[in-house]
């Protein structure tokens, strides 16, 4: 079998060393925090070393994609944790008398609820999209079609597809933001008392 430019995975960690500076710079730019970037690079190195053997078509792009996904995973976890805390606080405010009897939030049950609500919210947001944007988004996300293919099916240019997708993403982002989805964003919904985690006690 011809493997051409394919890089063996054993070389992935080595490749990372060669591109260390660029990756670190990217991680800092993407996460906005130089300290976190160092941390993420460490995690990336671990992941790269542990990835099951197999040829990688373009090692450098592969590492950048892995790095980009690490930042995404981390912001997702952070955002979910903050949302759980906030929901817990809101419920406490709504029923202060019940606070003493209330157990710490159960991540499992809450996560299930949040998941279902999120899916409903997205479903409604998708249904309220303009026709073209909705079609492009559904083909892109749920039918696995590439931009060129969507362009062909819809009979428009690739940049037309990008415009549709941008309209769709902006609309969905707005709907999610309206429901406090992006709680991790520094300017929004930051809880004034930073120490109130899942195990924090309600202030009198």
């Amino acid at each position, binding site marked *: *079998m*011809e493997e*051409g*430019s*394919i890089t063996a995975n054993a070389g992935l960690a080595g490749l990372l060393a060669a591109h260390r500076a*660029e990756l670190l*710079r*990217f991680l800092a*730019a*993407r996460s*906005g925090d130089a300290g976190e970037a160092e941390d993420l690079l460490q995690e990336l190195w671990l992941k790269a070393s542990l*990835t*099951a053997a*197999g*040829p*990688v*078509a*373009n090692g*450098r*792009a*592969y590492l*950048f*994609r892995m790095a*980009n*996904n690490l*930042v995404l995973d981390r912001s*997702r976890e952070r*955002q979910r944790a903050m949302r759980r805390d906030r929901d817990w606080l809101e419920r406490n405010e709504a029923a202060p008398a019940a606070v003493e009897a209330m157990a710490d939030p159960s991540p499992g*049950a809450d996560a299930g*609820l949040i*998941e279902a609500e*999120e*899916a409903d919210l*997205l*479903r409604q947001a*998708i*249904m309220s999209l303009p026709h073209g944007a*909705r*079609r492009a*988004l*559904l*083909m892109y*996300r*749920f*039918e*696995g*079609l590439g931009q060129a*293919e969507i362009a062909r*099916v819809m009979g428009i240019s690739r940049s037309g597809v*990008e415009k549709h*997708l*941008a309209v769709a*993403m*902006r609309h*969905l*982002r707005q709907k*999610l*933001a309206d429901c406090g989805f*992006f709680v991790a*964003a520094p300017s929004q919904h930051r809880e004034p008392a930073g120490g109130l985690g899942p195990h924090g006690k309600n202030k009198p």
Partner: protein
Amino acid sequence: MTGADETIFATAVTWHLATQRDDMDWDGFTAWLEADPQHRTIYGEVALTDAALERHADRLAPLSEAYASSTLPRRTWPLWAGGTVAAALAAVLLVPQFIAGRSETFTTESTQRKIALADGSSVLLAPHSRLTVSGRHKDELALAGGAYFEIRHDPQRSLTIRANELEIGDIGTRFEVQATDRAVRVEVSEGQVEVRGDALGDPVELAAGHRILFDPAHGLAMVASVAASDVGEWREGRLTYDAAPLALVASDLARYAGVGVTMPPALAGRRFSGTLSIKDGNAAVRDLSQLMGLELSRDAGAYRLSDPG
């Protein structure tokens, strides 16, 4: 949103779409992120929005059926030979003459469906899958989901199958294709196919007894051997894996056994080797959790796998 914000947002979406491609300009992207802290914030929200869509793919994909496909030409086809055992398991469909240039779309819900192509080839479309047939000679297929192909060799034409970022061609053979936005898998039981794609560099010749597993998110492709009898074995109610990522096993279980399984991102890449009987989806999930030593819980109608403790 102001005009300037809209421009930043559109640029962020363009970058985001490009991250999936191999020709992505990562240095240019880094420079763009560094240029203005707002770029980072907006890009982060675009990525999170798309990730939310991806995470709820199982719940949201039916919308695709309702809205994206509705504008494509659709007809109802007469059922063939009702009453036999085979027909009870799979509705057999005859594809008549196409109107030139039109594309034809076939979708399945919870049952598989056999599609007979005009040249005598046939496609068994797996549950929850979608096949589009287009091109002047009806030789351009596109698959989302799973299918087992039995293609009659015809030197006069070159049939191609689009599966996510890959293209499969040069075929007169039997093989199976699985295409989701997370992974593409091609397994050949007879003959030989050529698998092409920008991410692969050179095309890969895949002979009988081999399979390729492609991860579009990371541009990672793996070629391995596979027992010919394991190819398309979902038709017999069984799935066999050899070091397959857990996320892929979960998407197969959703498609073939009709059970939803979620897991924390840290588990998605963990490897599974073994055979699952998918005649009973609940049992299949329990087997999977036991074989991997994972904890199984259930919430909101879906199973969740997690590390014990």
